[in-house]
């Protein structure tokens, strides 16, 4: 690594670089959809961080009288008069022949929805004891805006709690694979020759293993006594392990092509150190591609988590993640009788979409040739 010691050597150059990123920021702001997406993604992460506060109920409170209760509708008109948003309480009826559970509404007792309401006590980040929730029913009675699952647990609350794991899993996984991918792919593509060959063989071997047997073997190797946190961390590593090789290949392919570009040649002729050439000249050259790859990779990991859960190799209850919630939706029962159990899919789709639009905007902004 002959260029490892010269970072920050040239102040003019770093200032030049900074202004380029600022330029990109301005261009990014022009892209309205991307900005909206960034706000949404930010919001999702904000909710995930403070999920205890945003969820109207605790995620594991079961209620036999609300098993498979459908979503409650929010009303504003009661007996012909406008009032603050409210819901009607649900009453369970069981069909004695088919054992189907249906719910009727008790329209005589509207229950108002309040903000910053006192509800189930919790510890924010397991530390700060609190009992306020963003919204809920007045006396802590359960509100089920997205219905309830088999055990009568509030699905919306579970989705909100699940976002904490699902969203961070993708982020951590991508971070790990990005770092590995850039370094290894960069080295491989730039130096070529023997090093490239060895790295390529290594990636080839790693990538050539079909993912499912790899998942099976690794998840079977996870000890049972592990706490959910350790299992979670292990899962991110498993997912990242598969992700980084793809990025490394992209980086290498791009560098292989860019290395032959005139500006790289010129830099080399001018005596610029190799590492500097990679980081200063080549990486910006394919930053756009990298950003697209990364934004596509984060949702890819969120989806991978759901697939792992489907195969029963991933996280398991009582851990709550979107993948775990979707396990409940993987049967004809959910499809035909309790379609609201599928609502985590909507959250998955929205998250993935937003990430993609965000990546799109970033890509356009980073593109040195646009405008």
């Amino acid at each position: 690594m002959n260029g490892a010691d010269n970072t920050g050597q040239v102040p003019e150059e770093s200032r030049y670089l900074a202004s380029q990123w600022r330029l990109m920021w301005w261009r990014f702001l022009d892209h309205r959809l991307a900005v909206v997406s960034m706000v949404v993604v930010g919001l999702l992460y904000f909710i995930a961080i403070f999920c205890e506060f945003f969820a109207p109920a605790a995620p594991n409170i079961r209620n036999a009288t609300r098993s498979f209760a459908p979503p409650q509708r929010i009303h504003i008109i009661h007996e012909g008069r406008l009032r603050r948003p409210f819901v009607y309480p649900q009453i369970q009826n069981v069909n004695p022949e088919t054992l189907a559970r249906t719910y009727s509404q008790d329209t005589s007792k509207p229950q108002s929805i309040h903000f910053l309401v006192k509800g189930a006590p919790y510890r924010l980040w397991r530390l700060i004891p609190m009992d306020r929730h963003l919204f809920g029913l007045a006396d802590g009675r359960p509100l089920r805006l997205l219905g309830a699952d088999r055990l009568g647990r509030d699905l919306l609350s579970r989705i909100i709690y699940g976002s904490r794991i699902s969203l961070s899993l993708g982020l951590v996984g991508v971070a790990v694979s990005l770092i590995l991918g850039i370094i290894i792919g960069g080295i491989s593509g730039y130096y070529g020759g023997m090093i490239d060959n060895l790295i390529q063989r290594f990636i080839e071997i790693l990538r050539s293993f079909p993912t499912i047997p790899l998942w099976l073997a690794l998840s079977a190797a996870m000890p049972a006594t592990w706490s959910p946190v350790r299992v979670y961390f292990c899962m991110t590593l498993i997912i990242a392990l598969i992700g980084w090789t793809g990025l490394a290949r992209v980086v290498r392919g791009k560098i292989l092509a860019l290395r032959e570009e005139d500006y790289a040649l010129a830099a080399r002729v001018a005596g610029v150190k190799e590492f500097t050439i990679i980081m200063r000249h080549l990486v910006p050259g394919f930053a756009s591609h990298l950003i697209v790859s990364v934004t596509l990779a984060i949702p890819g990991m969120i989806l991978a988590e759901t697939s792992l859960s489907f195969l029963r190799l991933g996280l398991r209850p009582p851990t709550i993640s979107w993948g775990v919630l979707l396990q409940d939706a993987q049967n004809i029962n959910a499809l035909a009788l309790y379609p609201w159990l599928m609502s985590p899919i909507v959250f998955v789709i929205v998250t993935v979409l937003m990430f993609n639009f965000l990546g799109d905007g970033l890509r356009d902004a980073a593109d040195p040739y646009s405008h």
Partner: protein
Amino acid sequence: MRARRVRSRKARDARVLVYAALLAAALAFTHAAAAYQEAPQLTDLVAEGKLPPVEKRLPENPAIVEPVNQIGIYGGTWRKLAMGALDMQLSSRMAYEPLVRWDRTGRRVVPGLAESWEIHDEGKTYVFHLRKGLRWSDGHPFTSEDFLFRHEDIHLNKTLTPVFPSWLAIGGTPCDVMAPDPYTVVFQFTQPYGVFLEYLAFRGNFVYSPKHYLKQFHPRYTDEETLVRRAKEAGVDLWQRVFSQRTLPNENPELPVMTPWKLTVPPPASRTIAERNPYYWKVDPAGNQLPYIDRVVFTDVQSKEILNFKAMAGEVDFQARRIDSANYTLFMENRKQGGYRVLRDPGAVIVVVYINQYSRDPELRPLLQDKRFRIALSAAVNRDELIDLIYSGLAQPSRGVGTPHDPYYLPEFDEKYIDYDPALANQLLDELGMARGRNGLRRLPNGKPFRQIMNVYPSETGTGADQWQLVADYWREVGLDFVVKFDAASLSVMQVCNGNSDFWAYAASGLHWAADPLWYVPWQSSSYFAPLYGRYQSSGGKSGVKPSPEFQRLIDTYLELRASVGDKERKRQLGHAILRQWAEECYTVGICIPELLAIVSNRFKNVPNHIIHSYQVMSPGYIGVEQFYIDESDTAQPAEAGG
């Protein structure tokens, strides 16, 4: 009654008219040999000279099967769904042809291939008299030689059967099988064997094999050179692999069978087909050779979800296997459209959590052996809520001590410690010195934290995960910290049998356990409540751990039960004694008996309204699959009320 039935059906096709005429003829000459009838396509084959006439194919004294509702009509295809070859059960549930069998109550042993039997030497010698003139599906006579072959050349052959069937080796010594004449089979044991008939009714399929066919693959009858060549042709390295493959009724269409249908299109295939056996040896009271149904077709599916989906869409005629009770509402709501009815019955399997009675962990052991701890676990479970939430009410609370189907069951076994009583649980745990820590969780009496793994056998039904998490929640509510862990199916059992799972969530068989005592007696290492005691018993003390006097009492009581042949009252007392001890001591935490479903298409007839779902009676085998029939004219009729 039959005449009334014919009158009640207004639209009958010509074939049925002919059939009615035949019926009348059959009534006139019930006992004459000429009265036997056969399926139309077999008549054609007889006319072409490809098959001997029906009376030559049937035994002198064919078994007469009383139909569940009425005499059937020939023809039709029984549509079933299967996930893989094992699901077809052409050697077990779909092919229940034992020496003696269960009747439709599932409690009485009645003649099967043997038309009569005698018991000698206080239960050490059993003599069975086979029906004369029985034939394999290829027409070859079925004789006592086939029993001898199974015993000497398969069971006693160490290469083919490394594990001699323990139920045929009482006291550890393999039984003797003798064939004094072609129609007599003698089983001789070294000790009195009072439950042999029950065992035969359960597993009597597996005491005979077609010698005339299989001997060509056996080294005792065929030279080594030929065997080596056959193995090479089959692409395997050992003769025994070829032999084993040839004995599988689920896979080998050449294998002669004694069952209503024989395999014609073997798996793997998108549709595996079994066609009627022209030599089947049973008739209905009118002299019609059974089975009524021409063929059974198993459509291959890759997942249980699809199987249930297809069943919901009405793509099966009679199916209980892998039908998920969680879909009950769905089935009921779609039954009119799909043209089927849904039968719903409590199964013979109890959902339980085993508590290892000899834990390898010396700190945990005294706790698990303390009755108060086990009672606390039982009382902490809210069974009614669990059944409501997990099973939508399709289950009955159970203590895990037998099911009402069992001959030794008494309702009193399900009375104690079954009600939800967290106060009692807490009181008992306090008494045990399991104080609660700051987090509300209890500690072991020695002050160490109590954090245990509940190993879960990955059950087929989707209710598994929620159910065990719920049980763990109940236990956490009384301060006991449990982590639910799902194992791979095979490893789960292995781990338990080695005594490494202290809490294991699985099931117990609650029917005819006296023939298969491992569920309630520490009998072998698959006695999941005390595998190490069980291993001691089955190995004759060579490995495992010597059972404590309490458990030795279970063994001794059972040995006495097994030895008693004549005195039914004494037998009942002994059986009750074993279960009573269980009810008192609470060795496992019984949860519930789930109800099981059968989907029966409206055209599918002679299915009783209640089914005993149990491997022990090989359901639906015990009903008599050969007397089911298909009435095409019934497809358009509205569904009857289920059950």
